[in-house]
């Protein structure tokens, strides 16, 4: 038997961006006042929640070698429906079901367009995004709807022990996704079909069905992200999905540089999401002008990705 060797290069290669994240946290804790305060850390975690959940959905899709940008519309539509239906006095249980059905519906629509009709996933999912945005605009007529029901808002404002409930949801979902991906046949085949679909089909796995299922799961996660985001803000702001569009993509692709070089993975996505909000929060705490924060974020991201590309050509972008 040959011994598996792990060289320092492999470690930097696989965990480089992780180091960058740790260094960033350390630097902020010395320079930015109040960075280490419980309140600030809690804020970072809470803000990362909807981004993270949405990014989990996208991570599943990226694993199959496709992309799904429909969340840019789904999040906003779910938010509008949630706030609107609550205002009309519908019970939260029904509203929740409707919100998740929206995710189920858009997921199925994506699956039909991309898997059955074989449209390119980028275009098909962007089209679905636009349709959702249009539906959102029609539904709320461009008006921000606030949620006044304190019992409902308590869902996200509550603490479980010292931990905010949102953070608990995030970690539970992360755990479920991660276990599914790494410990079940389903997860194996999802990854496998993204890597070499012929190999998966050759052993008799129904790859197309599996891919459709992934789009549906992603749709549900997007809808849940929209649900959480709306409750966190306390109302539905127009096109709230658009705000998250690039952040979610950035979290996933940053994640590809963190653990498995070049491959979408859940721990990477989670860290990616935290990383983005840590930068935002840290630079703000440093007193940086708000319009300069994106520049600083961009620079740090470049450094993080560059560190993990030590071995030239090793970081491949996920193909879609």
């Amino acid at each position: 038997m040959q011994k598996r060797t792990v060289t320092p290069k492999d470690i930097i290669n696989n965990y480089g961006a992780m180091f960058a994240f740790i260094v960033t946290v350390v630097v902020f804790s010395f320079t930015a006042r109040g960075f280490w305060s419980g309140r600030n850390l809690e804020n970072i975690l809470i803000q990362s929640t909807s981004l993270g959940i949405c990014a989990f959905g996208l991570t599943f899709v990226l694993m199959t070698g496709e992309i799904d940008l429909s969340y840019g519309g789904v999040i906003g539509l779910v938010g509008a429906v949630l706030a609107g239906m609550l205002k009309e006095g519908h019970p939260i249980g029904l509203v929740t079901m409707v919100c998740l059905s929206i995710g189920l519906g858009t997921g199925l629509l994506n699956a039909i367009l991309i898997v059955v009709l074989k449209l390119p996933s980028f275009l098909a999912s962007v089209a679905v995004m636009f349709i959702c945005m249009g539906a959102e605009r029609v539904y709320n007529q461009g008006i921000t709807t606030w949620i006044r029901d304190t019992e409902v808002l308590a869902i996200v404002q509550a603490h479980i022990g010292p931990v905010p409930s949102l953070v608990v949801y995030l970690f539970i979902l992360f755990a479920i996704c991660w276990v599914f991906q790494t410990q079940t046949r389903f997860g194996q085949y999802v990854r496998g079909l993204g890597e070499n679909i012929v190999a998966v089909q050759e052993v008799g796995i129904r790859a197309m069905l599996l891919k459709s299922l992934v789009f549906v799961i992603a749709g549900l996660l997007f809808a849940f992200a929209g649900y959480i985001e709306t409750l966190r803000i306390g109302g539905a702001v127009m096109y709230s999905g658009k705000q998250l569009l690039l952040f979610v993509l950035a979290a996933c692709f940053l994640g590809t540089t963190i653990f498995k070089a070049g491959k979408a993975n859940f721990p990477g996505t989670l860290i990616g999401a935290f990383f983005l909000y840590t930068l935002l929060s840290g630079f703000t705490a440093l007193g940086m002008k708000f319009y300069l924060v994106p520049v600083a974020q961009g620079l740090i991201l470049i450094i993080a990705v560059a560190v993990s590309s030590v071995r030239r050509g090793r970081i491949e972008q996920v193909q879609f």
Partner: protein
Amino acid sequence: MADQRDIVIKTAKVSKSFPGVRALKELDFEVMRGEVHALCGENGAGKSTLMKIIVREYTEDEGDVFIEGQNVKDTGIRGVQTLGLSLIHQDLNLIPMFTVAQNICLGREPLSRLRTIDWKAMRQKAAGFLNEVTSEINVEERVENLSNSQQQMVAIARSLVTSPRILILDEPTARMDLKASNSFFSFLERAKQKGLTVVYISHRLEEIYRICDRITVLRDGRKIVTARTLDLPQTELVKYMLGREITQQVPKERVPIGEVKLSVRSLYPKEKGEDIHFDLRSGEILGIVGSIGSGKSEMARALFGADSKKEGTLSVNGKEVIIGTPRDAIEHGFALIPEERRAEGLVGNESVRKNITLAALKKRFCGGPSWIKQDLEVQTVKEYIKMLGLATPSTEKEVQFLSGGTQQKVVVGKWLMTDASIYILDEPTKGIDVGGKYEIYKLIVDLARQGAGIIFISNELTEVLALCDRILVMFHGRIIKEVDASKANQEELLFYVMGGRDYAETDGNSKRYH
């Protein structure tokens, strides 16, 4: 002959056509239980088509296929697998980032009580199958980190998961190094003892005569002969494979051969090559032949600096040069015409003009830092079109709409413009019709007449023999034989390509290869 029940695979008058080609013609083929049956034939003889029909990846147009006595007309791929059939394709279809164990158990992962994957059981299961083939691979290693040989072993181990009784192997040793093929052969011998039936497609004489009980030769989609290995001398086999002498019009004229243009000493392309030494003279056409995996294309890429790993020395016109990148190579007058010209040699949706001037743009048509002298460019391209006899309506026609032969000439034209004097042509006539081939041969001879040195890599032995002055035979990454083209014949050449050692001694005298 034998009892009907002992025939595990039987095809009866099977025909199959693809658009424009009759791949198989009324083919009868039988495999007996427990034998290792070799399937031989040149490229395009129909071997892979026949195997794909047997495993139901293709459906025959006419005729019947029986497996274990059962007509499989309406049986699918999964169906024949349950009959005990397993095919290992030339392209292995492994998942590179998965571990060996994950690949072997793909689709059949052992589960724990919680329906999660039982990794320990999976490793054991995978190791069990892998150990039947080799003991040198760690099941936890990722497939992307394995060598070609090891990946082939993994593919074989994976095919054992369905406990097949009939194993079909399509050139399994093409990617293996010598050590791997040795352990592969001991696996085959063990499998044979266990009563496994094996159909074995190979281009290597040594392997065929080492392991196979019977041999079937295909040519042009027909079965030529089935014989016991013991009754079929190697030279005889080669004759069956080639068939009648195909006389091809190759405009060979002997061009005076001049000084040494290029000398290569101890070149090591990647891990493949060993001891590659040769000289190329001006006006000389040097043929290089060898089967898939013999390392001839790798050598071409290494000479051109396209693969970075190499050692040894190269001298051009007597001066030692260092070629690390294709740019260095072009500087020293090299031109590479790659096998995959559509992917590597041409920009398909660009015009003839832009393709021809691509490599020489900077040298010949640039006024300022990047300003292209358009008039001069068009004028020169017109001259080249005339000189090369390019069948194109204008300088602006997109090359993708031209015939294969014309495209190839565009690539040659591109290098002519750089004043190249050492041409490396990798399968320049592949996929080109007879007329197009003739044009290309003429062009090559013209290049030689102008004093260029030409390395001509090809699988078509007829053209190599007709066109070249000298021929080097590669096998397992080494040059094993140098042949004078004017004295050799096709059978002798094919014998060496398949790894034979001494043609004169073997011919008619001894029947067994050792």
